[in-house]
């Protein structure tokens, strides 16, 4: 066959699994036409452990700890989603104090996730000092979590029927004090993200996803809301969210900048929600007694920092469950990610992958 040098070259570039941008092994096969991405194929399974199968070896009370370890970043939410499903099946009524504490911790976890993401995003476009600053602030959030739960990334405070650990009024006082300082410091960092011309030049108009496509592809979380779809599962009012005042944060551009903006606004929203939780914190017990075994099935939807997560539990009346399934936000966002990568420059791919806030260990479980 005669070689036609004028034809554009098609090449496949493997992206990952080990690469400097992300600590996690994500793998994509990028089909390139010169420097433009024509198509991307995801390949997952580097972190696949098969933890859903462990329900056969651990009973439903022990499994909280496994469910939580699906991911070290969204750990609190995974534990909470799982116990919520079991509690619903067993028809347990959780004390209000436990509900408010869970909500407070979920919001603190959202703050640490979003600050972490801001840092990684800064790292992806080569702003090292901004990365360090974000992670310095994140440590303050971890301090609050460590003060109240005892853990920095894995908390293990949830159990079926409530919580393992209570907090003291002094701790809550301390959280309020830390939040005030943190908010001021965060403003400096987030103003850089939203106003610095270098940052803007990397993010404005890059990786646009239209609302219609975002809905069609089943995207969720900040990725969806940045495309102008107003949907936040916290509005369903699970745990104590029904008693708190907040509105989903939306942005309409659908580009990397919009996603950044949504997460930044959510960071401040979370601070506000934590304050609301503490102001309304009821007294009383933190757990109810659990007897018997779950029998039935239920699916819980909660809003993780990265989007809507589903926890499906099918129990059979013994201590061991039939099925636990966790559909994590990143899993739903992968088709959306591939859509945004198409037509992008190769150099922007790393940053676009980051803007969905991928969590590979969640995705592969």
């Amino acid at each position: 066959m005669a070689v036609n040098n004028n034809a554009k070259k098609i090449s496949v570039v493997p992206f990952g699994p080990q690469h400097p941008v992300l600590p996690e092994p994500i793998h994509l096969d990028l089909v390139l036409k010169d420097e433009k991405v024509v198509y991307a194929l995801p390949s997952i399974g580097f972190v696949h452990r098969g933890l859903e199968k462990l329900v056969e070896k651990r009973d439903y009370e022990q499994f909280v700890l496994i469910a939580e370890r699906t991911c070290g970043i969204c750990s609190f939410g995974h534990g909470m989603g799982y116990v919520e499903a079991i509690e619903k099946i067993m028809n347990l009524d959780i004390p209000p104090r436990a509900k408010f504490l869970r909500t407070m911790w979920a919001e603190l976890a959202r703050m640490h996730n979003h600050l972490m993401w801001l840092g990684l995003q800064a790292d992806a476009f080569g702003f090292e000092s901004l990365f360090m600053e974000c992670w310095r602030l994140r440590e303050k959030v971890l301090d609050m979590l460590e003060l109240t739960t005892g853990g920095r990334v894995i908390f293990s405070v949830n159990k079926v029927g409530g919580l393992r650990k209570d907090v003291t009024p002094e701790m809550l006082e301390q959280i309020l004090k830390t939040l005030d300082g943190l908010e001021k410091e965060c403003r400096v960092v987030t103003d850089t993200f939203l106003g610095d011309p270098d940052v803007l030049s990397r993010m404005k108009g890059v990786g646009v996803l239209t609302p219609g496509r975002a809905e069609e592809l089943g995207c969720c979380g900040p990725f969806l809301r940045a495309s102008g779809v107003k949907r936040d599962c916290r509005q369903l009012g699970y745990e104590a969210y029904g008693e708190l005042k907040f509105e989903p944060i939306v942005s309409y551009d659908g580009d990397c900048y919009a996603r950044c903006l949504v997460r930044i606004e959510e960071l401040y929203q979370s601070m506000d929600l934590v304050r609301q939780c503490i102001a309304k914190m009821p007294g009383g017990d933190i757990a109810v007694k659990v007897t018997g075994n779950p029998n039935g099935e239920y699916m819980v939807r909660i809003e993780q920092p990265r989007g809507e997560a589903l926890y499906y539990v099918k129990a059979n009346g013994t201590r061991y469950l039939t099925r636990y399934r966790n559909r994590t936000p990143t899993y739903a966002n992968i088709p959306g990610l591939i859509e945004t990568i198409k037509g992008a420059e190769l150099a922007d791919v790393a940053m676009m992958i980051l803007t969905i806030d991928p969590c590979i260990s969640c995705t592969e479980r």
Partner: protein
Amino acid sequence: MKISKSPWILHYDGSSCNGCDIEVLASTTPRYDLERFGIINTGDPKHADVFLITGGVNYQNRDVVQQLYSQMPDPKVVVAVGICACDGGVFKDCYNIIGGVDKVIPVDVYVPGCAARPESIIDGVVKALAILDKKRERMAQGLVPDEKVWTNTIVRPGSQEKQED
């Protein structure tokens, strides 16, 4: 304490839950600042002296881990961060987990914890540096870097037999 030159770190996430990964990253950031020892987190195995692995090894990433290890120049040390990297942790019974990192490459320092705290990760890395120095001395004398010969003891799925050490 004498810190050896400026050792660079290669970090790979085996099948970790991310908990240890973000703690490894956190230990390089201002609060803990691993970088004050001259340690830099690099993405290139050929630049690295210390190999930090988080999470257990599964059938998919076994080759990746071995390949990264073989690409690192001698002398090199391996630090297994977190209980999963040490022996499989809570995921030990999962069908897709082979076990700790020492099933596929030799490990010099074990840092347990779920998740391992940044303090203990730094402690583990500093311990690894002492081992790195020892290996370097051995190489200067014309010996192989490792004192003991490491043998691989993988159990393949389905086979009950375990290879002898």
